[in-house]
């Protein structure tokens, strides 16, 4: 493996050299071709949607769009390699937390003034493309997590944290073999969901403007303590099993809209529905989804922005977002088509109205994985109290970011 990593690193360096020698001659005479990178299609139907959008755009603009599809798990590695080698696409999808990094070192272009009217997008989704108040990309779709509940075990979904704890306890009391809820873990994924709970107690992760860490304050402690308090009624021995909610071994879980269709297809007998995340003081949610950006070293930037505005316009955004497994970021499209999403999707739409973007810091992935996630884990395992875990994590984050507050 070592060899593979060093090999990859240097292979890229070598490619960079070769590409530099190649230069960009001979492109002017060819018909305009736009290269677009995206994730592998989730379903064949999604592939057809993308294909149709491409055909429409090509016809309307008399250009060729070359779409390269890459498995999601490999995407960031491939993109990083392509940047190193100078073989970037003209335009492509970029993970929300990567926008800040790519923007700050000039790998991607700022959206030129007048390209879009920012008001046509949901603010939460648009903000995931902003770094230091400048816009660097457009949101293709957005998504959030909500509460999934087993209708047999949970007659009415809990609205508040107290109700959530009571519901979980009741389920586990009635049958000790069944867990109340699949409590998220202290890993990168749990770290992504946790801000939804933090916000539900009125808190937020950081204040980027004044360079202050906020997640170790009372709302953060309360949010983490909620997860700790849920564990006795939701033993890991049950919830660490394969698909505990789907198999009826857990009354509730937290997941995204992508799971609705999968569960319906694979577990047709499971009676479940979705509800907004329970909250302490105010409804809140996290946000995920796919942004698209234009690369500085790519070509045809004007056409690239045109393609992205085409994908996110009121006419096309719903079909595209649904194909990508999320919701339209274009307000007009979302409001027009809301009725067609089905009752199970309403909860996610509620969540998106109160979504909070991740901090636009280039170090955020590392902070999420290496500092916040382990802090969550150490509180959940009972090694330290929630307050201790978060205080320590906040100190580490301050040291890493060299912040004082």
């Amino acid at each position, binding site marked *: *493996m*070592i*060899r593979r*990593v*060093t*090999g*990859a*690193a*240097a*292979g*890229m*360096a*070598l490619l960079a050299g070769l590409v530099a020698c190649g230069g960009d001659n001979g492109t002017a005479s060819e018909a305009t071709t736009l290269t677009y990178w995206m994730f592998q299609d989730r379903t064949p139907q999604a592939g057809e949607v993308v294909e149709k959008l491409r055909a429409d755009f090509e016809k309307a603009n008399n250009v060729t769009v070359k779409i390269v599809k890459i498995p*999601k*798990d490999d995407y*960031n*590695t491939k993109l*990083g*390699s392509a*940047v*190193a080698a100078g073989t970037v696409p003209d335009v492509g999808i970029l993970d929300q937390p990567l926008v800040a*990094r*790519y923007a700050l*070192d*000039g*790998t991607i272009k700022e959206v030129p003034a007048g390209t879009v009217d920012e008001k046509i997008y949901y603010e939460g989704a648009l903000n995931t493309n902003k770094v230091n108040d400048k816009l660097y990309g457009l949101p293709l779709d957005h998504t959030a997590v909500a509460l999934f509940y087993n209708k047999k075990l949970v007659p009415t979904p809990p609205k508040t944290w107290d109700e959530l704890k009571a519901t979980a306890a009741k389920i586990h009391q009635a049958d000790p073999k069944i867990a109340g809820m699949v409590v998220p*873990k*202290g*890993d*990168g*994924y*749990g770290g992504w969901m946790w801000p939804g709970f933090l916000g539900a107690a009125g808190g937020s992760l950081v204040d980027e403007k004044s360079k202050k860490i906020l997640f170790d304050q009372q709302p953060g402690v309360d949010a983490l303590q909620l997860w700790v308090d849920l564990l006795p009624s939701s033993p*890991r*021995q*049950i919830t*660490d*099993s*394969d698909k*505990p909610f789907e198999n009826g*071994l857990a009354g509730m879980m937290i997941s995204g809209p992508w799971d609705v269709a999968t569960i319906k297809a694979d577990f047709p007998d499971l009676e479940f529905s979705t509800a907004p995340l329970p909250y302490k003081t105010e409804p809140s949610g996290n946000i995920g989804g796919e942004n698209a950006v234009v690369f500085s070293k790519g070509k045809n930037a004007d056409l690239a922005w045109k393609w992205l505005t085409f994908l996110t316009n009121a006419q096309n955004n719903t079909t595209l977002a649904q194909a990508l497994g999320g919701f339209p970021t274009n307000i007009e499209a979302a409001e027009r088509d809301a009725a067609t999403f089905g009752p199970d999707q309403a909860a996610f739409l509620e969540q998106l109205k109160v979504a909070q973007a991740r901090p636009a810091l*280039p*170090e955020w*992935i*590392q902070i999420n*994985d*290496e*500092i916040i*996630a*382990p802090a969550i*884990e*150490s509180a959940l*395992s009972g090694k330290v109290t929630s307050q201790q875990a978060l205080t320590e994590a906040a100190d*580490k984050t301050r*040291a*890493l970011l060299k912040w004082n507050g």
Partner: protein
Amino acid sequence: MASPVLANKPAVTPPPGRRRRRPGFGRRDHVIGWLLIAPAVIYFVIFLLYPALAALYYSFTDWNLRTAPNWVGLANYTDLLFDDVKYPHFWKSVQVTLQYTLIAVPLTLGTALVQALLINAIRRGSNLFRLLLFLPVVTAEAAVGAIWRWLYDPQYGLVNTLIGIFGIPPQNWLNTPDLVIPALSFIAAWQCGISMIIYLAGLKGIPDSIREAAIIDGAGPVQRFWKIVVPMLRPTTFYLLVTGVIAALQVFGLVYVIFSGGGGRSVTGGPEQAGLTYVLHLYLFAFRYDAMGAACAMSFILFVFIMIITALQFKFVKQEAS
């Protein structure tokens, strides 16, 4: 201008039996020889030597794959070893990897030897068993990960059913920090097929005459094993030990697939980083946390460490058959 001293020297005559010309150049068959090994040499230079040297260079820079690398001297090395703000889990990953090596290597060698002895002992169907025991090696790593996640499942897992027979309560194998390394080591031992084949070859190499002589001298099977088989297999064991330790220190694929279950969401190294092996940690810094320079430095720290460990093994472990 010939110096008189040189001129007085006796003419250089090639020593008997040696050619005067340097071998390897200027002769047609040598050209063909070079041509024949050219693909391997070119491969070596482009895909191994050059990348390794490039990685060495990048290990002294702050390269993040995107911007031009800046020279930072030894900062990556000193930060990795001493700065636990930047690399909070570096030493944890070292500890995890050493634990894994200490458990997985002996377990793998032991399993391989037992399997080889069993196959060597049976007269019929040894090909079939050899195939079955080798199968885990050729199975795709993703499939291995999926299968073992099922076997270790806290609710339905066969491993828990098995230990239940002996009255041991069910365990949450892959989510209990103390059990993660033993669980991973066990998978490694299950994949011992290559070691098994090499042991089998070693066993076939033990002359029958020695075994027969021992039987005549009245040695039982246990004595024969300890006094003949183990000493005669020493070169094999040494080879497997050295290569096994090197492979274990570089373990990556197994942990990656085991802990990336559920759509690659969480490769951060299992519960409380209990499965964060050295190379997984390196991979995360290279491709997830934007620090290719530091990742290259990590790879060279590992390289030096492996060299030292291997040298120590050559010095202190008996390698000759006796």
